[in-house]
């Protein structure tokens, strides 16, 4: 515990000081060495800082799992809710309190398995909030079971003979379900992730940002994927940033994933529509 860098030695990015956004009294945090979630959290706080979001008016909602535990470290109004339900909880919170900036932190199991239905309908509704989906391809908290995003043939504690299920692409699902802002970034590109999150949070409507994270301790170890830098470099080899979108590189990248802004659509925001309709109803003195 004494070997950790003192808080004043933590890196700074411009005027952004992560200590301004963390509940330092909760340190040391509980994430494993090499976990990508901390980098994602840093990018989120950096984005919020640059957007000059007021902490008092920021609500962060998270579900269950390693992703779910990240919210508690943020010095804001934080809610750690039931497994898979942070989007549903956040929907109620945002509808009751449109003045709050609402950010949801969730994982691949939380949002794509147990919370899949809420994910679809949050995309469809287009209520003004942001989902950060930390995808580490595994249920880390419970000891490394298969998730909807576990790469085919990989080993987990519940796929001892290799994963026989295909992967769920969160960003494609989000676009199909109608999300008006969809993006993806890996933790390696932290400044890019920060910029993507800034765009997502500033977007008026429902935004989804999938963060390609890594679980070194459990998933990496089980599949001989190397240490954290090695896992991240492997991600880098598969990334296809926006500028290379039309490059034919399939032979070199067996599983390429696009990064950057993947979709940005102009569609009315949920509460704007609700308010306009109910105002009209009120003026006419009734509905149908």
């Amino acid at each position, binding site marked *: 515990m004494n070997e950790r860098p003192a808080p004043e030695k933590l890196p700074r990015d411009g005027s952004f000081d992560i200590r301004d956004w963390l509940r330092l009294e909760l340190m040391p945090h509980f994430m494993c060495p090499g976990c990508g979630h901390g980098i994602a959290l840093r990018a989120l706080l950096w984005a919020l800082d640059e957007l000059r979001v007021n902490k008092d008016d920021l609500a962060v909602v998270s579900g269950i799992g390693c992703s779910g535990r990240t919210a508690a470290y943020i010095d804001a109004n934080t809610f750690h809710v039931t497994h898979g339900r942070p989007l549903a909880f956040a929907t*109620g919170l945002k509808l009751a309190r449109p003045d709050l900036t609402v950010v949801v932190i969730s994982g691949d199991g939380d949002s794509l398995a147990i919370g899949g239905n809420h994910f679809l309908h949050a995309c469809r509704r287009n209520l003004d909030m942001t989902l950060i989906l930390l995808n580490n391809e595994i249920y880390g908290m419970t000891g490394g079971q298969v998730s909807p995003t576990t790469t085919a043939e990989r080993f987990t504690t519940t796929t001892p003979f290799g994963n026989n299920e295909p992967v769920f692409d969160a960003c494609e699902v989000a676009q199909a379900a109608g999300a008006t802002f969809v993006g993806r970034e890996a933790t390696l590109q932290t400044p890019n992730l920060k910029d993507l999150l800034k765009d997502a949070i500033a977007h008026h409507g429902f935004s989804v940002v999938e963060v390609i994270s890594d679980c070194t301790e459990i998933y990496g170890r089980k599949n001989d994927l190397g240490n954290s830098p090695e896992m991240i470099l492997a991600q880098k080899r598969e990334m296809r940033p926006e500028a290379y979108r039309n490059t034919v590189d399939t032979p070199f990248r067996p599983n390429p994933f696009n990064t950057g802004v993947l979709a940005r659509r102009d569609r009315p925001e949920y509460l704007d529509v609700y308010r306009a309709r109910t105002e009209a109803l*009120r003026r006419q003195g009734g509905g149908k």
Partner: protein
Amino acid sequence: MNAQAPVNLQGNHACALGAIAAGCAFYAGYPITPSSEIAERMARELPKAGGVFIQMEDEIASMAAVVGASMGGARAMTATSGPGFSLKQENIGLAAMMEAPCVIVNVMRGGPSTGMPTRPAQADIMQARWGSHGDRPVIALCPASVQEAYAETIRAFALAERLRTPVVLLMDEVIGHMVETVTLTPPTEEEKGARKWADEPKEGFLPYRITEDGVPPFPRPGDGYRAHATGLTHDENGFPTQDPARVAVVMRRLLGKIDKHRDIIDKWECVDCEDAEVVVTAVGISARAARAAVRAAREKGVKAGLFRPVTLWPFPEEAFRAATAQARAIVVPEMNAGQMVLEVQRLARDEQAVVPVNRFDGEPIAPREILASIEEALT
């Protein structure tokens, strides 16, 4: 609509109007027979009252959204029936743990599973008490008329807000769909109850502080407290703890806050109990039949009485013991295979006979069935 003029309403609509009168600002629900009229009325009334109605993708989501709205500071509710009530249990537990005030209406229908959607039952009495896993504070109210559906909805909000806890309004399909003449008297500020808003220094604020009355002040997001709320067992500071000494202390506070407020929670009705040799104990529509049976028994010279818990959970033990002090027998009619009778058996003295009257065929219990049991109990 003149609020004071008598109107004809069904129980479900009276419940919705009670919620509006109580200041409900958020409703999330999912269609389910026989409760859908509550959602339909709220969809119409809430926007006029400046609130928000949303039909969610499922029962789980609607309960989660209600807890979210409540943690944002709004008076929030949902309504459902058995199958939906099962799905809501997960986030009812979250509301109990986060201490999010909210009202959950369950218009009971025949079960188990899909059961008989359009038929009445009272088979969720134990689910209302024990439905969500773990020990948790529970309040459930049981109206027996349309007028009471209105009044008890208002009281459900008052208790929820005052005690920071989910409150279940248990109606049966008969009360939900029965039309009666009611007077919609607007509640006073006192009857509406108030949440204990945090109004103290932000520095060192403990969102789950152990207070004299067992209810921690609620930190409204935006007021600068920046609190953490979690479904994990947490210490006074809101952050998770597994320290046995601390867990014992904070859980005792959470579970004990109901006991500290029995004076405002307990509610019951006694009819002719003073000298009653047999007391019928019933709730909801069964209590209506019991009332008629007690009257008929008295006309026959049988000393019968009615004890009707309006607050079903926590069961009004003291009042029950007083009401049955003279009783040789206690008759318990209920539309299930025997649920509330377990609580009555727990409370009855050894020499008192406890006689269950059960129907679970989708038909309400008739007064003559209860009368027969009253007479049988005394022979």
